[in-house]
């Protein structure tokens, strides 16, 4: 049967949804009656009159969408509008069963529609079934679902997704007609009417524009606050030396720290120590060492300042500073010495010799060489540039001087008394040109210094001869003030004061040794000794100066005193000098006034003797 809208006696809400679907050129109308409620909420949905069997309904599941329904005499706007656009106006037929409308829809598709019609007609009964069975089907579907969930949860369900066919909601193809056909006039009229309608549309009361708006969700503002971002400005200057330093620092980090630590204690321990103050200084150096180590651990500024004051670099810096100060003060004199142009005035000197001798020392040995040239303008004179003096040297008698062979700015001066009675502790100082106010090195000796000489082969070695006969060798490179070597304990040391020391280069081709330098000394005990530096100072005598008999009148005081002869038969030697070319030959002068020519190869005999001076010391 057909569903007819029940004319409710009471008011009822009828919900009808009309859906027009077209699938494969078929128009389908269908109603989906959901439910009908009356005022009290009772379900007054009209129940179907026919209940089909469940098996048959299953078959029709696929055709749910294609269920058809008939409209009753409800001419909806939709239908009417649809009909208006149909070229072949078959208005009357719309009211009737809807299957008939198909026949008039399109000419070209008449065959298909007839088929569909046939389909429709074939299934009148089934239509009912499908329509009726909607609710039933729906119910059954639930049942089926339940069964599945219970049994086959673990079963693998394959879901196939396919693209659905295009669902056309509205399709109105244009239909064309020839002008010459019968209905052409009608169609043209209708077209005109339509155009006029379109024109009249604007501002016409019959047409109402309507707008729809989608619902927007209510916006919500949300604020978030983060912690304050702290900004800091940092600037750094990249210099090329900075890059160089950091590059080098990578290579020498570990090694430098190790060596620094090891060198620091050594530098502290090698501080100057006088004979009397030896122990106190070593103990203080240990304390210094500890404090330096503490400074490193604690890294406090106070300790650092101490470390600075103790550091070698500081010492060196002070050294430079002092030198610079001296330069400031003594610049004119030094410049004059070097014959450089002086800043303030220019002083010209006439003779070079005089300039060499212009340094003077406090006491006795002032070298004056006044030549008396008969010039009217200015007699050549010596000008005293500066004097090497300091508190240490006050009161000391200068006994000997020697220039360093390598560094002509270095002068070694020995202080010692000549007389026996006046003996006191001696001093050997190394003075530099660059600092006339303080000697570079001060070596304190037990006895007065009587002779000095710098070595030629090793310019850092300074040989010092003393009044006691001791020969000591100092190394002036280090700040160490103790002698490198001392002959005070050797067996063959001199007994009398050493009057002259000299470093001589000697060929020793015969013995097989290399050409070396040896130290030769002559002393008042009458021996000329050759000192060798092998393990310590050892000496061999080159010559013993014997008293020679004089051919002339003998002075009574010299030889015939038996006491003297018993004491020594040797004449005190005062000085000597080697032959400049033949280092085997040397001349020695004695207290007697004789000059002996000797040879190194002969130990016993003189080669020759020259008698010149009667008595006296020769230098």
């Amino acid at each position: 049967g057909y569903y007819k809208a029940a004319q409710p006696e009471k008011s009822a809400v009828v919900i009808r949804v009309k859906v027009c679907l077209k699938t494969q050129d078929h128009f389908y109308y269908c109603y989906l009656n959901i439910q009908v409620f009356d005022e009290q909420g009772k379900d007054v949905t009209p129940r179907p009159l026919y209940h089909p069997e469940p098996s048959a309904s299953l078959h029709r599941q696929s055709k749910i969408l294609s269920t058809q329904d008939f409209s009753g005499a409800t001419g909806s706007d939709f239908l009417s509008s649809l009909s208006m656009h149909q070229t072949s106006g078959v208005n009357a037929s719309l009211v009737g069963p809807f299957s008939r409308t198909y026949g008039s829809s399109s000419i070209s598709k008449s065959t298909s529609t007839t088929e569909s019609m046939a389909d429709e007609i074939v299934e009148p009964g089934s239509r009912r079934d499908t329509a009726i069975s909607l609710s039933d089907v729906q119910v059954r579907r639930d049942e089926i679902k339940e069964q599945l969930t219970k049994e086959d949860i673990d079963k693998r369900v394959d879901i196939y997704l396919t693209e659905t066919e295009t669902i056309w909601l509205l399709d109105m193809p244009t239909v064309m007609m020839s002008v010459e056909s019968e209905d052409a006039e009608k169609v043209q009229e209708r077209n005109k009417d339509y155009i006029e309608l379109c024109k009249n549309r604007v501002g016409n009361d019959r047409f109402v524009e309507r707008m729809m708006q989608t619902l927007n969700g209510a916006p919500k503002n949300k604020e978030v606050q983060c912690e304050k971002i702290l900004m800091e400005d940092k600037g750094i200057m990249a210099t090329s030396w900075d890059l160089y330093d950091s590059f080098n620092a990578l290579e020498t980090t570990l090694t430098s720290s190790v060596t620094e630590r090891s060198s620091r204690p050594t530098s502290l321990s090698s501080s100057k120590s006088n004979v009397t103050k030896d122990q106190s200084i070593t103990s203080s150096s240990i304390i210094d060492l500890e404090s330096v180590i503490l400074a490193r651990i604690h890294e406090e500024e106070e300790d650092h300042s101490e470390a600075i004051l103790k550091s070698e670099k500081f010492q060196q810096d002070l050294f430079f500073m002092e030198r610079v100060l001296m330069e400031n003060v003594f610049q004119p004199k030094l410049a004059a010495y070097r014959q450089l142009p002086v800043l303030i005035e220019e002083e010209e000197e006439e003779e070079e010799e005089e300039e060499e001798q212009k340094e003077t020392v406090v006491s006795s040995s002032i070298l004056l060489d006044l030549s008396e040239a008969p010039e009217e303008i200015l007699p050549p004179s010596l000008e005293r540039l500066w004097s090497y003096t300091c508190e240490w040297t006050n009161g000391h008698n200068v006994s000997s001087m020697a220039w360093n062979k390598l560094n002509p700015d270095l002068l070694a001066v020995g202080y010692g008394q000549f007389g026996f009675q006046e003996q006191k502790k001696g001093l050997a100082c190394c003075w530099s040109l660059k600092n006339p106010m303080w000697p570079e090195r001060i070596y304190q000796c037990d006895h007065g210094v009587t002779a000095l000489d710098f070595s030629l082969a090793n310019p850092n070695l300074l040989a010092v001869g003393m009044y006691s006969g001791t020969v000591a060798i100092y190394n002036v490179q280090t700040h160490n003030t103790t002698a490198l070597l001392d002959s005070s304990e050797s067996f063959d040391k001199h007994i009398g004061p050493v009057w002259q020391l000299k470093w001589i280069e000697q060929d020793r081709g015969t013995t097989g040794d290399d050409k070396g330098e040896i130290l030769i000394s002559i002393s008042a005990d009458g021996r000329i000794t050759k000192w060798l530096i092998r393990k310590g100072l050892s000496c061999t005598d080159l010559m013993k100066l014997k008293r020679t008999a004089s051919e002339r009148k003998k002075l009574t005081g010299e030889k015939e005193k038996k006491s003297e002869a018993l004491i020594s038969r040797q004449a005190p030697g005062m000085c000597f000098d080697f032959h400049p070319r033949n280092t085997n030959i040397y001349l020695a002068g004695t207290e007697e006034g004789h000059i002996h020519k000797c040879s190194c190869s002969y130990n016993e005999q003189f080669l020759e003797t020259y008698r010149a001076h009667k008595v006296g010391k020769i230098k």
Partner: protein
Amino acid sequence: MAEVEETLKRIQAHKGVIGTIVVNAEGIPIRTTLDNSTTVQYAGLLHQLTMKARSTVRDIDPQNDLTFLRIRSKKHEIMVAPGNL
């Protein structure tokens, strides 16, 4: 240590020397013979200048280093011996 003290004393006692200041790496004076305000002023200014001078020398040749700095003015002369760093 004793030698350092000696040398320092000698320099200070030298004729023509007005004062001496010994300064550490940060430019803070550790020894001085001048009054406090002058010391602080000199130390601060000279430290900066020495840094700049050293930077200049090393920028030209990174293997080089500043050894001595002398500033001669109308009235005095300032001599700076820069240490390490």
